[in-house]
């Protein structure tokens, strides 16, 4: 059902943990839906120096969190904002259709953490989509 890449990131997730005094923290999803993703960023000079995550969710939720954190590590904020859920899915060699929402959650968690960084630093944020990653009642049309 899952690709080898997904199983690899599920069994050996990268960047699990917390960052104390993080530059930005984003949490999306909710327990009712069965998945919550929390991402911690350490940002210096516009560069994501370190990133950690914690996820409550299925195998795909854990694997997408792991992959998304790998993809943004060392990148600039604007580069991180360009990473879409589709790119995360591709990097994992695909996800079953029912699990695409997990990749959406990962994209949104990154955005939420960056938004938090902007807020903490009084930076005016560019317009970010308002999806919370919970698919019941979602009308965002992600691929």
């Amino acid at each position, binding site marked *: 059902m899952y690709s080898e890449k997904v199983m690899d990131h*599920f*069994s050996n997730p990268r960047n699990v943990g917390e960052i104390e005094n993080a530059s930005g923290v984003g*949490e999306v999803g909710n327990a009712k*839906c*069965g998945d919550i993703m*929390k991402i911690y960023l350490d940002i210096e000079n516009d560069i994501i120096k370190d990133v950690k995550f*914690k996820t*409550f969710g*299925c195998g795909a939720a854990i694997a997408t969190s792991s992959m998304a954190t790998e993809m943004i590590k060392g990148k600039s904020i604007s580069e991180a904002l360009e990473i879409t859920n589709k790119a995360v899915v591709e990097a994992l060699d695909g996800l079953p259709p*029912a699990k695409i929402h997990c990749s959406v959650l990962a994209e949104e968690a990154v955005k939420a953490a960056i938004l938090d960084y902007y807020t903490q630093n009084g930076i005016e944020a560019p317009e970010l989509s308002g999806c919370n990653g919970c698919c019941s009642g979602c009308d965002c049309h992600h691929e």
Partner: protein
Amino acid sequence: MSEKIYVDNAATTRLKPEVLEAMMPYLTEEYGNPSSIYSLSNKPKIAIENARSQVAKAIGADEKEVVFVSCATEADNWAVKGIAHAYKNKGNHIISTKIEHHAILHTLQSLEKEGFEVTYLDVDENGLVSVEDFKNAITDNTILATVIFVNNEIGTIQPIKEIGEIAKEKGIIFHTDSVQAIGHTPVDVKEMNIDMLSISAHKFYGPKGVGAMYVRKGIRIFPYMDGGAQENRKRAGTENVAGIVGLGKAIEMATENLDETMTKLSKLRDKLIERVLNEIPHVRLNGDREKRVCHNANFSFRFIEGEALLLSLDLKGILASSGSACTSGSLDPSHVLLAIGLPHEIAHGSLRVSFGDFNKEEDVDYIVENLKEIVARLRAMSPLYEAYERNGK
């Protein structure tokens, strides 16, 4: 770990060698159509009738009251829709429960669209239906009651005999889906006042794709499919001879060895329950502790999600199941876990372990040791656990 530990016997079981042996002739040289009149069809014809008496004997019924079908879902559909349609002039009300299998629930929903009214009885926190609630739900229009004998997820055994007695008194036809019960707890249709009952062979070491329905003598039921005159004109379609023979052999073995099976499996179940509850924090047992089928254990582990748990167990060679949304194909966790009052986030973290004849006591130790590690690992990456640790609640 090359050998798998299969503990999903409530989903399906492994065919017993004796059952396969009984089936083999009807997959090979005894291929005659039982409806034909030449000599090649004699043995298949006799074999079906032999299987019918094996089923009848196993549940305390008369041979004429047993009809073979393709699966228990067919039996459930047929029983519920068949009775509703045959008795609709008498009334349009049906009583059931909130913890039925989807084969019953979705059938009832389809009848509701036709104008039938259904009362879905609540269950208590252990998944038990109240006999008093059942009594109070009866109206002058009630024609049918259908209550699952043993719940497939949490293993709770319902007060079938008591419900059947009331139904009998009130002239209501009483059906029970006994898929999880056969071979795991005593079933006697006469003693328990059961009018109709659904059976599935692959839940007690028989083959998939075959089931049976018991219909008490005197009950009118319309055929579900139009076609030939098989099964005394009740169920058209060429008989699955090998499957029926396998069902007969499997149910005979399952009921003859019932006491032994119950003793063995409840020992494994109790050991698992005791160790998990004692050795893993923040866990609850779902389903009744006493009125529980011998092979089922169902837990909720707080702060983690069931599919991640199942995948991790699979990597260790342990095959089990969960009622989490991620395994159900919908966004909601199991309706059974919600019916016993679990909040969504706790229902998402459920695990069902169902033992079978092929399991050994060492399996329980292996499962517990791995569960401890896996639950700890998943909790270490759970933001819910982080929040709990931080707030102490």
